[in-house]
């Protein structure tokens, strides 16, 4: 799940609609609705909010992010490369004896090793987050909904995608209305010609 769900170009082949977009009035209503959508067995869906609603991943049944493992790996790589660089410089690359001290003065390498470890981990966290989230993604069918602009303001949305096995044009929309959605709409995918014309900004 997770990563592949938002892979629109592949998954959407043969569908005329992206799916159903429903807006909820309060965080509480959204939370309850997410629990219901999860329990109804939908898998290709998403909650879209202007701020991270606390604990919503539980209501959606999402697994925790795997990002920490990546960050651990890039952090250790950064530290390892840093230590290797310093050792190489002082033992092989440019061996200078200073005050009769040994060439492999590892305690003096600790600060730079630490800093490069932090740099590796931070790059891993940011670039890994971009990769996991597929950012930048300048085109998305949801941006075709006028209403959806509120997602960065006060709009709390649930979108259920048309290629979900349980999806039905009419039933899914009614299901979301029944959960207390104040606005429900079908979002078109849009044709390729229009896409290429739309240009840079989403």
């Amino acid at each position: 799940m997770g990563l592949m769900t938002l892979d629109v170009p592949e998954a959407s082949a043969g569908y005329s609609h992206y799916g159903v977009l429903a807006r909820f009035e309060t965080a509480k209503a959204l939370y309850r609705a997410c629990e219901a959508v999860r329990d109804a067995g939908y898998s290709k869906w998403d909650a879209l909010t202007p701020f991270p609603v606390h604990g919503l991943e539980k209501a959606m049944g999402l697994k925790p992010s795997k990002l920490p493992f990546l960050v651990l790996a890039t952090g250790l790589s950064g530290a390892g490369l840093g230590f290797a660089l310093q050792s190489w410089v002082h033992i092989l690359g440019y061996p200078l004896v200073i005050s009769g001290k040994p060439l492999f003065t590892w305690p003096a390498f600790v600060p730079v090793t630490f800093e490069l470890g932090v740099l590796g981990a931070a790059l891993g966290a940011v670039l890994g987050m971009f990769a996991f989230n597929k950012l930048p993604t300048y085109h998305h069918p949801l941006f075709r909904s006028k209403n959806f602009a509120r997602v960065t303001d006060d709009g709390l949305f649930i979108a259920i995608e048309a290629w979900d096995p349980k999806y039905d044009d009419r039933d899914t929309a009614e299901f979301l209305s029944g959960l207390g959605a104040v606005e429900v709409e079908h979002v078109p995918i849009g044709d390729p010609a229009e896409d290429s014309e739309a240009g840079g900004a989403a």
Partner: protein
Amino acid sequence: MAQSQDNTQEPVAGRAPLIVGGYDFRSMTEAVAVPVERKTPVGWWFFFLPSLAMLGLFGVSIGWLFWEGTGIWGLNNPVNWGFAIVNFVFWVGIGHAGTLISAILFLFRQKWRTSINRAAEAMTIFAVMCALVFPGIHVGRVWVAYWMFPLPNQMDMWPNFRSPLIWDVFAVSIYGTVSLMFWYVGLIPDLATIRDRAKTRIRQIVYGIFALGWRGSHRNWLHYERAYLMLAGLATPLVLSVHSVVSMDFATAQLPGWHTTIFPPYFVAGAIFSGFAMVMTLMLICRVLFKMEDIITMRHLENMAKIMLLTGCMVGYAYGIEMFIAWYSGNPYEQFAFANRALGPYAWAYWIMVSCNVLTPQLFWFKKMRNHIGWLFISSILINIGMWFERFVIVTSSLHRDFLPANWDYYQATFWDFASLIGSFGLFFTMFCLFARFLPLVATAEVKTVLPEADPHQGEELVRVVPAGSGVEPAPQAAPAGGGGS
């Protein structure tokens, strides 16, 4: 006081609100986005143009430095480190409060940070930019400044990684890089807000590119929040290491007054102290200029004043313990260095430092003074003057009289020393003005999470029989997997 409600007093039951003025999500977006979208206010030019002029002075002073060399500064033989290093340490220190607010207070779950963290992080980045200029220009032969980096070159020469000066290059440049990434990650949702509100094509494209197509998906928020948490966890030891490494530039030297183990914690406390003073100065101006008194409230200011009091006392303690250890060590050079600091030719600088840094924050013991806008402003300026002098005292008073009296001299700053100091403020304020004009000054997405209606379990506490946090869930009616209402 323009604020609509006093939130500095905790009510008997519950907590006082962090944000006052009855904001909901939409009005919060408006409050933050409108200053980015409306016509430039006249007041902004009032700050921007003088800053730009000072930045011009910076350019002239650096150009003249490159043309003529470091002889234009007041450096002499015992005092080989002058304003350049003083300014460097000062600016790095200013940056530290931004990271403290954005990372350390985040890990401590101090939710009041959300109103000020964006601006404080921006301050960090601009302060690090100012700091990085000085090591770059002070080397004399600037065209070989790249020797500071481990780059393969035709001389087959490499930097000495055993030197704290090279640790400094890595610590400060990585600190700047990580701060920039942390700040940008925090900005993404707010850039998307500006993108979605944009009326013109240019704004849509520019903000759209930087917003990366963010659409608030919770599947994205999940990775986003995790990345943010880890960046906070990484920035915390990083910021402590940066000023520790800066202090080792001094502490690993054998000079009396520098060669001491107290330096790393003492420098870190001083850095946070001066940085909070700078955040205070900037926020006091911004909240009035951008009408954000209800978002950056008295409570935020009071909390900052408390941290300034704490770190100010730590700095005062460090001054005292330095004196004590100098006496207690029995080392005559150490004793002389400190007697000379307090009573010698630089006594004027020492006593400016002590009165600004130790005495000024003591008034923050009184709530009345913590809530006094005028005093907060004056004290924040005084503290930054004091903290600049602290670095001046450390650098010059130890250097100007070392072991051999034949070497003694007095360091007197020239016009160009002052020009580069004033110029660096120009760079800082120019950048900050541009930031305040074109980017959301408050982390809107984060502030929305501290509004009561952002809680998906709002009101549920009222029906709870068991106390929150006891591990026992209040039996929900339907879905069993409902998250804890913490």
